[in-house]
């Protein structure tokens, strides 16, 4: 007996689901658009949670295992919410030989978190990148969206302090 599976309703009233729906329409509700859709979810919500994965998987008619597989295979997707600020330390080859690892050490020490994690107060996420393509400015760090070149442990330290200081 064939059952008709209707497109599921958005998990919440949140307007951002409309963006996700728009992407799914653009890819023709086809499983081929899975990565595109996950990009939109992450762009809109900041990360992919179980609710979002279930909704996208059902809408595009792919097994949840496949949606989860794709979400965890690609480094770009994250299943946890990011902190208020994000500090990306580039560890591409050029940055690596010009002191990227020392910068990472500084950041880990200052924030007391491992790469890929967020400080307990949710202020800063520490992330490493494979190469952000700013090799001419090595070593590079991305503070939120801004790329900073020729970073030193000192300047990194100062920048992170600004984010973690709770004056108010």
């Amino acid at each position, binding site marked *: 007996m064939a059952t008709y599976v209707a497109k599921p309703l958005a998990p919440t009233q949140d307007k951002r689901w409309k963006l996700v729906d728009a992407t799914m329409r653009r890819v023709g509700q*086809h*499983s*081929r*658009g*899975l*990565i*595109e859709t*996950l*990009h939109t979810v992450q762009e809109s919500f900041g990360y992919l949670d179980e609710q979002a994965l279930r909704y996208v998987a059902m809408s595009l008619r*792919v097994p949840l295992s*496949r949606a989860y*597989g*794709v979400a965890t*295979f*690609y*480094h*770009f*997707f994250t299943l946890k919410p990011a902190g208020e600020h994000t500090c990306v330390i580039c*560890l*591409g*080859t*050029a940055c*690596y*030989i*010009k*002191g990227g*690892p*020392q910068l*990472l*050490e*500084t950041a880990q*020490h200052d924030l007391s978190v491992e790469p890929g994690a967020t400080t307990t107060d949710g202020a800063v996420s520490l992330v490493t*990148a*494979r*190469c*952000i*393509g*700013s*090799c*001419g*400015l*090595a070593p*590079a760090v991305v503070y939120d969206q*801004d*790329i*900073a*070149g020729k970073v030193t*442990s000192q300047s990194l330290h100062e920048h992170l302090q600004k984010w973690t200081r709770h004056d108010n």
Partner: protein
Amino acid sequence: MTTEELDQIAATENEARKRIPHRVNVCVAAGCLSCQSQLVKDAVAAEITRRGWGDRCQVKGVGCMGLCAEGPLVATSSAQLYQHVAATDAGELLDSLDGPPVARLHCRTDVPFFQRQKKIVTENCGVIDPERIEDYIAAGGYRALLQALTDMTQQQVIGEITVSGLRGRGGAGYPTGLKWSTVYKAVGTQKYAICNADEGDPGAFMDRSVLEGDPHRVLEGMIIAAYAVGASEGYFYVRAEYPLAIKRLKIAIRQAERLGLLGANICGTRFSFKVELRLGAGAFVCGEETALIASIEGKRGTPRPRPPYPAMEGLLGQPTLINNVETYANVPPIIRNGGAWYAGIGTEQSKGTKVFALTGTIRNTGVVEVPMGITLREIVFDMGGGIANGKKFKAVQTGGPSGGCLPADCLDMPVDYESLAKAGSIMGSGGMIVMDETSCMVDVAKYFMDFCMTESCGKCVPCRVGTYQMHRILTAITNMTATEADLTVLEELCDLLKHASLCGLGQSAPNPVVSTLRSFANEYRDHIHNHKCSAGVCGKRPAEVSA
């Protein structure tokens, strides 16, 4: 769109340019943007408005001018190049247009870094506004496309590419003409053309420079390729880490569609081609063509055994052409000037030019385009200005995690596909990272092995387990706890991965180890027997290094 209409657009553009005598070109590629070049551009624009110079001077955002380390770079119509420009320099820059140059910011262009370059792919980078199609057309753009569509048959286009001797610029160096003709001959209900812009090699950013500085050139090359092989749909697969390149590509696609250079019945011919953008999601293995196809299909990016090659069975099982950004960017000039012209540049086996991202502990870091056959010494010491801080040259790494480290005695070797392969490295996509005596080669090998281990997709055992084993041994060596027996196992693993892995990632993962073992075996032995790291990198905890 006809050639006459293109000429019309170019004429209008040049006319408008003639009316304004002065021009200030500010680099707005990612490198300079991260040194606040947007503020410089805004400041110059504000200063022009303040002075009421609207009809005298125009400010333009352009692509990469090459010398990324000295940014923000600004070029003026008084034929001066300025470095380290700040927003506060706007007034002085405008004053210099009719007067003497600003000596304080002056950047010499009569040096080998600029003089030794041969610009084909990057000829428009740093000259045209990448966000305006009119600028590209005024620089001779889309003429090649019209020529191919109206005056040439598909076989003629492929023939021209074959004559040129162009080889894939993604790294492997497969003859482009041969690839095109395979896809052309393949039978399928529909054919696809894909542009691989998933520049994942750490230390390589040439493709990004081209996409940010001259996106229309890549697009034009791809449309010509699609015509030649008979593809009706295409995909740009771009790294999500390159937001600016993505933005400019989107603009380029929209502009080309508006002028009828892309879409249904291009330029009134029977040829239709539509292009979509697909974002990568941070998986190095997706640079491998079958993995890339899987990713476009919305799956995990795992490779599959070849054959069948994508040229026969690619995207959705249909014949698919996959070329890299730089390969496509070479196509328009080849069609315009003929394959024989291109074949006249470079060496016997490697024709044309190659764009390199020159980085590391070198004085002039940035993007250079050089003719094939130039020596490494010329690139590193003449153009790159040698090692900064008076340190000694140790090695140059080419080809990313699939390449190798070339020692000083390889410096006089010509740069072409065969020579690099013979020396134990590969051409790769074009990253060239120079290292001095403060880099430990074992540590560098460990770095690349860590990369390959993390990036291994996990499908085949030799790669998944082998990279882990190799990384474990390399870590032991750098911790001074390894034995001679470990070294033997390491060498065996190199051989195993090379021959038993499924795709290029695993097959080439041992390359950094093999090449450093070949040229820097004494460093490995020093670590194992004398518990000594001559570069002073290993054996210490990172905290001590930074202190």
